[in-house]
Each structure stands twice: as structure tokens, then as C-alpha cells.
């Protein structure tokens, strides 16, 4: 096992190395450093920026400040329940090292998490509404399908995605 320690003293140094940027799909960048022979650790004042799914956590914080009509087309503000449920699942996914491609608020107060496989050929959307949650599976070939979702279903969702 080789260990590379990156000690960043400024945000620009961090950006220079582009281990994680907001403009590159997270699934690809993270996976470059998921290796049995190499481990990357970060230290220094900007370590927080390297946290897996950090961009997703930040976006969820931003979404919590949106108000009704945030899209100027009568969208509802994100539901507190939806935000809380999404945040919980993001924490779960982060704890097991699963990158999240993106998150977005929806017009009916929902929060969507988009999780993609390494090859970007399959994806699952976890969508948290105020009163229910769904998982929508998008296979590489064939028809997409939709199921009710609870956090207990997360292992089978990831098994389908990463198999």
C-alpha cells in the first residue's frame, strides 16, 4: 500500500490538483483514487473540500434556503422532510464510499439524488418527496423502472447499480 499525503494550504492549490471539482463528475474523479495499492489522504486547512460528496452536502445546504417560487415558475420550496431524508441517505452513501453524481430540487418540493455507475452506463435516481420516496432505475439497455424507496432498500439499489 502506497500512501500519498496532499497538504493543501490554499484553495487554489487544491483546485490545481483537481482531485475533486464541482465541474467534473464525482464518480470518475473519486474512483481514480480507489485502488488497493494506493491510498490518498489529505491534510491541511482545506481537507474538508476533499470529503467525498462534499459538493452534494453543500448543495443540500443551499436548497434548504430556497423559498416558494425559487424557479420563478411557482415551484414549491424544498420540503424539510425531503431534505432531511436526502441528507440522511447522502450520509449513508458517503460512509460506504459511494460517490453521488448530482442532486437537484424539484418543482413539488422534492429532492433528487442521481447515482451513476463507474462506466456512466447505468444510474439510479432516489427522489425524496414530502410524503414518499422512490427509486428510479435506468439500465444501460432496456426500459427504466420505478420502485418505492426506503433507506433499508439502499443495499439492493447499490447492488443493482454496481453489479
Amino acid at each position, binding site marked *: 500500500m502506497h500512501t500519498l499525503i496532499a497538504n493543501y494550504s490554499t484553495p487554489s492549490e487544491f483546485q490545481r490538483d483537481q482531485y475533486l471539482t464541482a465541474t467534473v463528475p464525482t464518480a470518475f474523479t473519486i474512483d481514480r483514487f480507489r485502488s488497493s495499492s494506493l491510498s490518498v489522504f489529505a491534510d491541511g486547512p482545506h481537507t474538508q473540500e476533499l470529503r467525498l460528496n462534499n459538493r452534494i452536502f453543500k448543495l443540500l445546504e443551499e436548497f434548504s434556503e430556497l423559498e416558494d417560487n425559487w424557479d420563478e415558475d411557482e415551484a414549491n420550496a424544498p420540503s424539510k422532510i425531503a431534505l432531511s431524508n436526502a441528507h440522511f441517505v447522502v450520509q449513508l452513501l458517503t460512509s460506504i464510499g459511494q460517490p453521488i453524481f448530482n442532486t437537484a430540487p424539484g*418543482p413539488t418540493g422534492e429532492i433528487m439524488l442521481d447515482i451513476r455507475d463507474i462506466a456512466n452506463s447505468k*444510474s439510479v435516481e432516489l427522489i425524496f418527496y414530502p410524503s414518499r420516496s422512490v427509486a*428510479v432505475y435506468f439500465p444501460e439497455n432496456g426500459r427504466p423502472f*420505478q420502485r418505492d424507496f426506503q433507506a433499508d432498500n439502499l443495499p439492493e439499489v447499490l447492488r443493482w447499480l454496481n453489479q
Partner: protein
Amino acid sequence: MNKGDKIPIEEFLYRRGFSTPEKKYCNPDGSATSRVFKLREKDEGMLSVDLKSRTTAERAISDPGKFMLFELKNESVEEVALETVYDPLDDGSNNAHALIIGMQMDDDIAPGHLARNSKRVIIKSI
């Protein structure tokens, strides 16, 4: 073409999504999220689009400071058992307007499918 006529599968559609320079609600690669194609209660089951052949990207986006524009082939609409019908606005303000019909509020397959089959239209200048 008359109001209510079905749009052929070869036609391309425009759909815009809210996104400002400060608040980007698209994917990191610039593609649309499924939420751009999600129905809302006020839509009454019909999603507004514009026909590419009857407008310009500049007209369809209206305000590039607030929106992103995405292009979608109508064939993708029919792949998820929906259809598009011509719906020019009665006041004459938008003769390119059309509606994707058949979507349900609890359907999250169609929004994701349409988003994954759309591509962003870059507006060069207004």
C-alpha cells in the same frame, strides 16, 4: 398544422430549465436533470415545450440569464408512451408551443428518460 395535431417523431423539441450563473440546477456536465422535465400541479398533466422547427433557440430560452435550453427528439417522448401535440398560444405570442401529454404526477420514469435523451443548446448571442 392545426392545434391538437400530433407532432411527428422526427421533430425536435425545446424545453428550458431554471438555472442562473449563481444557482446552477443542471448536472455537472451541463446536461439536464430529470427535474427539468418533472410535471407540476399547475401543468395539469401537460408539459410545455416549443417546436424547434417553428422557433429559434434565442426565442425559446427568452432569458439566458435565468434559464438553460435543452433539445430533445420527439421520438424519445414516444419511447415512454407519451405524445406531443401542437398547441400554439391563442394570443399569437408563441406559434411554436406544444404540449407533451400523458405524463402522470407520480411518474418519475419519464422525466429521467427525457432528461437523459436531451442535450443542452448553447446560446451564442442574444
